């Protein structure tokens, strides 16, 4: 996604030269969030996911089904899996992340992850088998969405396992997480919390507390690993993604930028600590900013010095309710206040740091999106803070 958006935004920023997009997947860029929601549930078709590229990128060259396997950033050349090389004047890193895997061996034929359209096809076929018993490892957003969809598809048993005491606790804090747990359980999702999958036997999973859960399908949703292996050996900071500056440049080089899930960037709106943000909205926002930085360099001019300061925006759909987040709730977990409504119904929660609103989360039916949106402008008005 970030690759396509970067190409479009390079054109919007006035760059008219050649653009080549290299992608490991054999298809044009597509929208991933429905893979755990509408598409997995069968409400939307697999074919409907492709992005409609802007007319401005009709002349872009797409090299698909081919991974970039190496880069020599100094010589400005990348090596592709088919043995060919491409030279460049500017390089946009948009390789995203891949699912982290559980380290314990066994049950290989029943273990799944969900990142690509191909993954979703396989998973949908398995979740729609009558009487299927599902274990989801990881109570994060993707794990909980998959669990909700599996229940809706009629799975016989769906159990989410996580070492934390509540689902989505670290990003959202106790108040919201407790309510998410209640709603998921009410819809029929079971939880094994405060414990972890430690082994597989031939019937399913073995938990740290000694319990065993039978499973026909195990979905591993235990976080992600940035795809940066191909950039190794260039002296770049690749510790948890590609470290960038406030203009999304990596390694102090004017011709190398990173966008989307793989980029670890400082957000001038907050404390300036570089972080990766796996939000759909960030892929678009960062592509826009990085393209302006790169287009300026390619045109021989200085980039706009205004640092990247996006307002993160994130949504997640579970059962009959939506979670809508704006800002950075995780930075304000010590001071959480209900702003509107009450936990059992539709409600909006504010996260504060140093008394200042840094994040808003709304939970409930369609009306909460509008409620969250009202608080979004308050977030936008908050001045940047220093740690």
């Amino acid at each position, binding site marked *: 996604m970030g690759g396509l*958006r970067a190409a*479009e935004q390079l054109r919007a920023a006035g760059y008219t030269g050649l653009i080549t997009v290299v992608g490991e997947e054999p298809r044009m860029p597509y*929208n991933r*969030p*429905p893979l755990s929601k*509408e598409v997995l549930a069968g409400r*939307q078709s697999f074919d*409907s*996911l492709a*992005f*409609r590229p*802007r007319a401005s990128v009709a002349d872009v060259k797409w090299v698909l089904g081919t991974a970039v396997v190496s880069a020599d950033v100094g010589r400005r050349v990348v090596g592709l899996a088919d043995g060919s090389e491409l030279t460049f004047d500017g390089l946009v890193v948009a390789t995203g992340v891949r699912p982290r895997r559980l380290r314990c061996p066994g049950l290989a034929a029943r273990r799944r992850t969900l990142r690509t359209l191909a993954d979703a096809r396989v998973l949908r076929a398995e979740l729609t088998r009558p009487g299927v018993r599902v274990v989801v490892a990881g109570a994060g957003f993707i794990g909980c969405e998959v669990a909700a969809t599996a229940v809706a598809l009629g799975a016989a048993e769906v159990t989410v396992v996580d070492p934390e005491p509540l689902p989505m606790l670290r990003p959202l804090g106790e108040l919201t997480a407790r309510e998410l747990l209640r709603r998921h359980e009410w819809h029929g999702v079971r939880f094994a919390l405060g414990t972890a999958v430690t082994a597989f036997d031939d019937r399913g999973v073995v938990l740290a507390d000694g319990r065993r859960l039978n499973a026909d399908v195990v979905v591993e949703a235990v976080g992600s690993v940035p795809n940066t292996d191909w950039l190794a050996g260039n002296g770049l900071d690749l510790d948890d993604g590609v470290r960038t500056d406030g203009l999304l440049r990596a390694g102090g080089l004017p011709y190398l930028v990173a966008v989307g899930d793989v980029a670890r960037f400082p957000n001038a709106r907050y404390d300036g600590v570089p972080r990766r943000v796996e939000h*759909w*909205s960030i892929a*678009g926002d960062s592509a826009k900013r990085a393209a302006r930085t790169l287009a300026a360099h390619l045109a021989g001019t200085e980039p706009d010095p205004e640092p990247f300061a996006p307002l993160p*925006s994130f*949504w997640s*759909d579970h059962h009959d309710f*939506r979670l*809508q987040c704006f800002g950075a709730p995780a930075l304000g977990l010590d001071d959480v206040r209900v702003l509107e409504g009450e936990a059992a119904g539709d409600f909006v929660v504010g996260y504060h740091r140093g008394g200042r609103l840094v994040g808003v989360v709304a939970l409930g*039916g*369609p*009306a*909460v*999106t*509008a409620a969250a*949106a009202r608080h*979004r402008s308050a977030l936008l008005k908050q001045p940047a803070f220093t740690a």
Partner: protein
Amino acid sequence: MKVVVDTNKCQDHGQCVFAAPDVFRLDEAGRLAYVSGPDESLRADVEDAADVCPLQAITLED
């Protein structure tokens, strides 16, 4: 310029409203309402709105 929203896809996320408030809005019930033939001067805003729609439900025709 003609704006079309695929109402089967639209999930009332309201992201389009932030990008192009003169074209899209959410009504009291949180449902999307929009101007289908906005002024040409709003093209850039509408393109941004189409980009940020999580369900990719917005198309710009001509």
